[in-house]
Structure formats: C-alpha cells, structure tokens
C-alpha cells in the first residue's frame, strides 16, 4: 500500500474544499458569466407571460404524479445497491427522459409524470454518497468507520443490521458532524429547483421521516408547498430528533409558524404497521384526546393507500363480502418482519376501516383524526418512478427488469419479488401544474389514488343534482356550483332528502376499459359503531346485479397470457351515473368514496414471462384488475 494514498486523498479533500464548492453529487450549479443570470437555476416558463394559458371559467385540470420516491440519497437505497441514481436522474426519468438505471437498463417512461417529489429518508440522508465522495468532514465519523470495518471484514449482514440499527436508535455518538446534514439537504433542494418548470413539470420538495417502532412502520412523507429559498433554511426532522408522530407534527407546526410556508405529512404502509399506524392510542399509550385528533387532522389530510409494498384499501379478512378485496395484499407481518400479523391489527391498518374509526372519534371527541384523502405512490428506491405494468422498474436495483427477478427475494432476504405491486399513482385535480396548485389540491383532498393506470374520475356530492346534470357537457361546472368535489364536506340540510353523487369515470385513454364503478359508504349506527357497504353504481356491458346475491356477474377476461395482451372487447370506455344513497339517515355521520375497477389486464409478472421467458410458479398472480380510489366526501349531521 502506497504511503502516498492517504496524502492524496487528504489533498483531494483540500482541493475540493479550497474550490469552495463541495456540494456533493449534484455539484454546485454552474454559474454563467456574462448577461445571463442562471442563479438560481430555474427554467423560466417557456410560454410568454402575456398569452392566456387559461380557459375562461375553467376549474381544475388533471395532473399525474408520485410524491414518494427514493434515490441514492436514501440510506437503504444505497446499501441495497443504488449508488448512482441521484435526485437529478430521478427528475429526468419522471419528466420523460431516457436514463441508464443502476443495473444498466435503458429506462424510459411510456408516459411522463406531471409532478414528482423526491422523498429520501431523512435519517442519515445522503451520508453514503458523501462517504463515497470522501467528504473530509466524515473521514473520522465513528459510524462511517464502523461500517467500513464491517464491510472490510466482509460481514455484510452485520453491516446491514448496524446501518438499520443506527437509523432506528438515537445514540449521541452517532450524530453527524456539524454542517453535513445541511449541505446534503441543500443538494436535495437544489436538485428540485433545477427541474421545476411551472406549467410543465412540478418538483415538490420533501423527505421521508422514518420512525419504525418495534419493527412497526410509522413512516410519513413530508411535502412542502414552498420553494428552495425558504427550504434552504431548514434541515429535515429525523427519527433521531423524535420517533413519535406527535413530535413530527410539532416540528411541522414550528416550521409553518417560522414562515417557511405550508407543509403536510402523508403516512404510508399502514399495512406494515401491525396496527400501530392508526392505533386507538397516542404514542404514550393514552387514549386520544381532543387536542390530539385536531392536530392529527390538521397535518395529515392524505394517506398513501397503494404502493409497491402492497395495497391498503381493505383486506379480505375485514371485508369478506368484497370480491375485489384480495388485491396485491401484504398482510402477514410488519415492516421489519419481526412479528406476524394478528387479525385484530387489520382494522387499524386498512383505509376503509380507518375512515370508519375516524367517524367514531369525531362523534366522541369533536374532530376526525382520520379524515384523509387517498393517493398512490411508488416508494421505489431505484430513483425510477416506473410502475407501468409493461414497464415495471422494480423496488430496489435487484428487482429492476431482468430475467428471473420475480423469483428472487427482495434485497436477498425479504419476500419474493413477484409479490411487489406495480403501483401506485396520484391524480390531482389542480388549477394548474405548479407547486402551489398541486399542493393546494393535496390540502383540499381533491386527489385520488390509482394502482398505476390513468383513468379519469370526477366525483361530486350535493343535494340538488338532477338526472339532466350528469349528461350535460358542462357537468363539471354544475358539479362545483351545486355541490362539492372529492375531499369535500356535506352538511345537514332541511328535510330527509339523501345526498346525491355524480360520478363520471373514463378509461385511461391509452389503457383498458372499465368493469364497474362502486361507491363505498361508511356510517355510524345508533351505538356509534362504524359500518361499511359497497354499492355497484355503474356496470359495463349492460350487466345487472343478481337480486338474490346482490352481486353483479364478473365482466369476463380478454387477457392472452401467451402474449401478455388484452383487448377492449369487454368493459366500458366511460361509466357515469347520478346516485343517491338509498339507506341515508340524516342523523348519522357518513363518508362516501368511489372505487373504479378496470377489466382484467396482464400483471407485470405476465410481461416478464413473455419478455424474459421466465417460468412463473402457479402461486404467482399473472392477471389483475387495476383500480382507482377517490378521496371521500363526508356527511356531517
């Protein structure tokens, strides 16, 4: 070993610090000499400002995106092999450019996204990237040295355990040297600024707070409304700063009152929380207080209900009569796989049940802590928000497209990759494609989740809609004028008239036809206990419900597995109906949301079987019925 090596590394560090530009992977933005001011580097809107880009009287447009994506700045992404896919790569891919994935796959979306939030874990964010960059401030950081030693001994398992333990523990000696956090966060903010192009592509600034208590997932994505200038002043809140959600909300409150702009938190993977995400107790084990329910409602208006690690709308054990409930479920354990799932836990995990619990709390405590809209995200750790079934980019580098990936285990030890769900996506009804407008749609819950496809769903509730309104070309205007969109509230009216709902669902313009539209209602009985019921409100192909079973016949199946294709010979291009609740009781609280089901199509495993010639075991699902879940409309007496 040459004695010159430590010297040259040190001298390199010196060189970098002298150049005054140690900004990590992203590097300092190039500055421009001359008349062009490119600092901060924000692409100006391409259209001239004087031209009208609005339709007079227009309400909302539909935008598609993902606010849950990890890059090599996430510690677990890096140790699972994503060393090169940075926030820059993530934005490029999401806006439709071709990039080279970590494993050398030329990756490109079939359809670009309209918005993206890179949400790397805040705990030790970017540290591995900085270690690889030989950031001089980390040269003798004890944790980095411990990891290097474990790696040098070839002890990968202990290394991974140590990394995960470090993230979950809070040992003062593990703290990062001063200034490192801030400069890493600045990289993240700078990357979001570089790719924000209002009107064309919105980058929302955010991160993931990753508290895992006893192996149970309590993770939240924190999404900011503001721009880089305001957000440069903070460093993200981590599990080391506080592992209780109450502490996170406290931080969010301080952030807003410090003038940084609006912010919200979005829980996900309650299905891996063993009942803890929506548990009936606060973090100290005490029952909810009226303060608690108000605070929670204030900061958490959305839940991510569908993603690669499973779908969380409902579970067959909770809703055995729901023939669509058994869908992409991960319901056997918690996040760290250290405690099997017990049946009692499910009610505190799945969205439909939890929305009902919210009504119970509201009637007892005066506010609904679980009054959330629904969105989908990927949670991919590859830097690639790619969940198109025919173009699924996987969860970690080892589930990126390649022969045999379905039969491998997630990062070597987890569940089989075939259980990964190529999901989900967020649809936002926003006034335009900008940070402010997308965030505001989130805040008023005018959003919905899909498991990947881009079906259009409009959902309005009101008291005065009539049969003619739904067939009007301008039913959207009527929808807003005479009622509320998804995410809204209906209050008690005079008389006992039931509320009416207009739902218009159209197939993904590039995708599969629709099987049916359902409205799912939850309500409280006289004893304050929540119930739920599914109504098939629109069926394709002239099908009728069997009066005896209450069920509609299945739509059929046009999938050809030999080629991984389907035809739109069944199902409907558009399903629209005006529905009024036949079981309405004006005295009881209720929520209503729409579930839109596609006809059967090939699952990503079917595309792999054709593309790579993979032999799939019989237990591997090859066909699925994709769906959309709208945010609910609540009725409060």
């Amino acid at each position: 070993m040459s004695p010159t090596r430590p010297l040259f590394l040190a001298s390199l560090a010196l060189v970098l610090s002298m150049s005054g530009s140690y900004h990590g992977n992203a590097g300092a933005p190039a500055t421009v000499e001359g008349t062009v001011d490119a600092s901060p580097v924000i692409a100006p809107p391409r259209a001239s400002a004087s031209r009208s880009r609005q339709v007079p009287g227009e309400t909302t447009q539909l935008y598609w995106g993902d606010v849950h994506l990890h890059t090599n700045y996430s510690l677990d992404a890096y140790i699972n092999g994503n060393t090169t896919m940075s926030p820059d790569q993530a934005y490029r891919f999401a806006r439709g450019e071709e990039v080279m994935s970590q494993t050398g796959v030329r990756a490109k979306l079939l359809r670009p996204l309209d918005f993206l939030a890179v949400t790397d874990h805040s705990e030790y964010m970017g540290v591995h990237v900085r270690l690889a960059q030989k950031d001089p401030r980390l040269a003798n950081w004890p944790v980095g040295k411990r990891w290097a030693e474990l790696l040098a001994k070839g002890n990968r398992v202990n290394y991974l355990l140590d990394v995960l333990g470090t993230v979950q523990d809070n040992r003062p000696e593990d703290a990062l040297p001063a200034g490192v956090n801030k400069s890493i966060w600045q990289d993240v903010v700078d990357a979001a600024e570089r790719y924000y192009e209002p009107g064309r592509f919105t980058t929302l600034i955010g991160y993931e707070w990753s508290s895992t208590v006893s192996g149970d997932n309590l993770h939240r994505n924190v999404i900011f409304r503001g721009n880089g200038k305001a957000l440069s002043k903070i460093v993200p809140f981590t599990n080391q700063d506080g592992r209780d959600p109450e502490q996170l909300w406290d931080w969010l409150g301080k952030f807003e009152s410090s003038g940084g702009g609006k912010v919200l938190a979005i829980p996900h993977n309650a299905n891996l929380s063993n009942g803890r995400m929506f548990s009936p107790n606060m973090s100290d084990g005490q029952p909810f207080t009226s303060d608690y329910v108000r605070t929670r409602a204030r900061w958490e208006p959305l839940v991510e209900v569908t993603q690669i690690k499973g779908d969380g709308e409902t579970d067959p054990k909770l809703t055995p009569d729901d023939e669509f409930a058994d869908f992409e479920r991960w319901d056997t354990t918690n996040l760290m796989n250290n405690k099997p799932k017990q049946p009692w836990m499910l009610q505190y995990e799945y969205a439909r049940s939890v929305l009902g619990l919210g009504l119970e709390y509201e009637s007892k405590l005066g506010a609904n802590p679980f009054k959330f809209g629904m969105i989908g995200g990927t949670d991919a750790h590859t830097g690639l928000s790619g969940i198109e079934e025919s173009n699924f980019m996987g969860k970690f580098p080892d589930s990126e497209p390649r022969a045999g990936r379905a039969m491998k285990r997630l990062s070597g030890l987890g569940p089989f990759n075939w259980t990964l769900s190529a999901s989900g996506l967020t649809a936002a009804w926003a006034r335009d494609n900008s940070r402010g407008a997308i965030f505001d749609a989130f805040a008023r819950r005018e959003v919905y989740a899909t498991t990947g496809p881009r079906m259009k769903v409009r959902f309005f509730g009101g008291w005065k809609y009539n049969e003619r309104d739904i067939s009007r070309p301008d039913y959207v205007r009527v929808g807003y004028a005479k009622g509320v969109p998804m995410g809204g509230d209906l209050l008690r009216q005079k008389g006992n008239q039931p509320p009416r709902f207009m739902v218009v669902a159209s197939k993904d313009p590039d995708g599969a036809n629709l099987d049916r539209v359902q409205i799912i209602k939850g309500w409280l009985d006289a004893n304050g206990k929540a119930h739920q019921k599914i109504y098939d409100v629109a069926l394709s192909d002239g099908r009728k419900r069997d009066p005896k079973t209450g069920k509609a016949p299945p739509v059929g199946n046009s999938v050809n597995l030999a080629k991984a294709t389907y035809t739109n010979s069944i199902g409907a291009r558009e399903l629209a109906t005006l529905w009024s609740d036949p079981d309405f009781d004006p005295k009881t609280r209720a929520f209503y949301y729409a579930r839109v089901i596609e006809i059967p199509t090939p699952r990503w495993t079917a595309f792999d079987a054709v593309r790579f010639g993979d032999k799939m075991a019989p237990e591997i699902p090859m066909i699925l019925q994709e769906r959309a879940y709208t945010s609910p409309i609540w009725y409060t007496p």
Partner: protein
Amino acid sequence: MLERPISASTDLGEPNRRAGGPTAGIRARLVSALREPVVQFLLIGGAIFLLHGLTTKPSADEQLDFRIDRATLARFAESRPGTFEAGPAAGLTTMRPGEVSALVEALTREELSYREAKALGLDQQDYLIRRRLSQSLDFLFRNVAPPARPSRAELEAFYRQNLAHYVAPGDITFSHIFFDAERRGWKNAEKEAQQLLPRLNGPRGEAIMDAGWPGDRFAYEMNYAARTRPLIESQFGTEMTARLFASGADSARWQGPFRSTSGYHLARIVDIAPSRQARFEEVAGEVARDYRLAREDRMAATGLQALKEKYRVTISPEVQRLMEKRR
C-alpha cells in the same frame, strides 16, 4: 480564474520522482482532457498526483513505511469531529502532550489496520465495498477540476450542439363542444356540428352558450389549459390533434367541425404554442444544468478510458461469442 493554484511540489510530496512509466499514458490522457476549454487545466498538479497514487505500485519497503509528520497529523485531526475547538491550525500546538500521543496512536492504528486489511484483500471480497471504492474513483474523476464557470459563449455553443434537446414540446388551450357519434351516429353528429357552427359565430352566439353548453358530455374534459400534444392525441386521436394544432388561435370564434375518434367537435382555441426550438435565453438555466452534467460525464469517461488503456482487459473467446450472439 483559480485563486490558489496548487503546485505539485509544495503540497504533495514528491510525485515527479516517479513520473513516467505506467502512469504516463493516463497522465497524458488526463492532461489532454484538462486542456479542453471546459476543464481549463486548473489542477494539473493535483490531478497528476492523484493518478500517480492510483497507478504506481509501491516497493516492498515503501509498503512498510509510515511517517507521521505535523501535516499528516493535522489533517487526520481535522477530520475527527470535535478534536479541535480552536481550529486545526492552532490545534496541535494547544493540545496537551497526552492528547497528541492519543492522536498519534489513533492514526497509527487506523493506518496500519487499513493497510493490512487491504494487503489481505479484505476490500476485494465484498461487492458493497468494491462498489463503494469504484464509485469513489468515479467521483474523483468527476471532481478533478472545480465546478464549471462557463462563459455565455461556451453555454451557447453547448446549446447549439444539443438543439434537439431544447425543443419546447408545444401545447394548446381550448374549449370544445362535442357531438357523440355513438349517441347520434357519425353522419348526424357531423351535420349537427356543421349546423351549429354558423349560429355560434353569429350575433346570437353568446346567447346560445349562455343558455347552456350545447352538445354531449365528452369522456374527458370540456376545457384544456396548456395541455401537451401527446395528451390531446390520447383523448382525441392523432388526426384531430394535428388539425387542432394546425388551426389558428382565436378565442372569439368557434372552429370546426373536427372529427375525433369518438365524434365531431367544435373548438374555441384560446392559444396554441406549437412545438418549437426554445431560444437560448429561455432555457439558459437548463443549459447550464445540462452543461455541468455533460462535463462531469465526460471527465468520468475520460478517466475510465485511461484505466482501460492502463489495464489489459481480455475477453475469452467464449464470452466473445456470447457477446456477438446477443447482438
């Protein structure tokens, strides 16, 4: 431009003694890369030394030498958080002797165990550490020169070389009235659209619209604000999209009928931004961003190419055949 050039002889020991030999090719390559206008040979000393360290095999004696001088110790101390309160420059002098000894001991332990671990090849055995080291080298290549400070002329040249990348995709803002072929039949849908058009553009046009939006409900939207061509194509079909984009914007007049995949339409087009070459001024920020990434990629590629020339990579005939088969 560089405020404090680093010379090979002051800071970096004695690299020139062993210049030439196996490193010459790489050095030449890097030097020539650094001569490119963008790199501006700012750091030749540092770069040469860096490559020297990477590419020179030490003799057996050298492998067992470890000399601790003030500079070595100061750099080591500096990288340990909390060692110095007053800052590294003053640090060593203000430390108590016992602390200096402890520091020497810590440095010795780290250096010797690091060397020995490497000598035993422990770094080779784990793909994670191999990948980390390989990435460290990649970062090194990318940061051989300080961040770009390109002139406007350089950015403009880059922009001209990558014109295709700076095409604004084009979008359209319009409202439409839809005549559903499924409901009315294609012939009727067309006829009714044709009949309504002159009335809408006539003196009573506003009154007709005020009385209620004519036509049928469309599966997607009634109004489209600054939506891109692929989105319009997916909902209306390519033929109608082409005709829409070829029409003139006139928010006071209805145009059509346009035939789509689901019927006929009358459109009031508020704005059309055709796909076009963006001017440099509009995309200067993007150009600067892309310039920086391209420059880093080029530096990394240059470094890798130099390595490929230094090492002899041979590919077995069997693998050769596999490569050709794949192709």
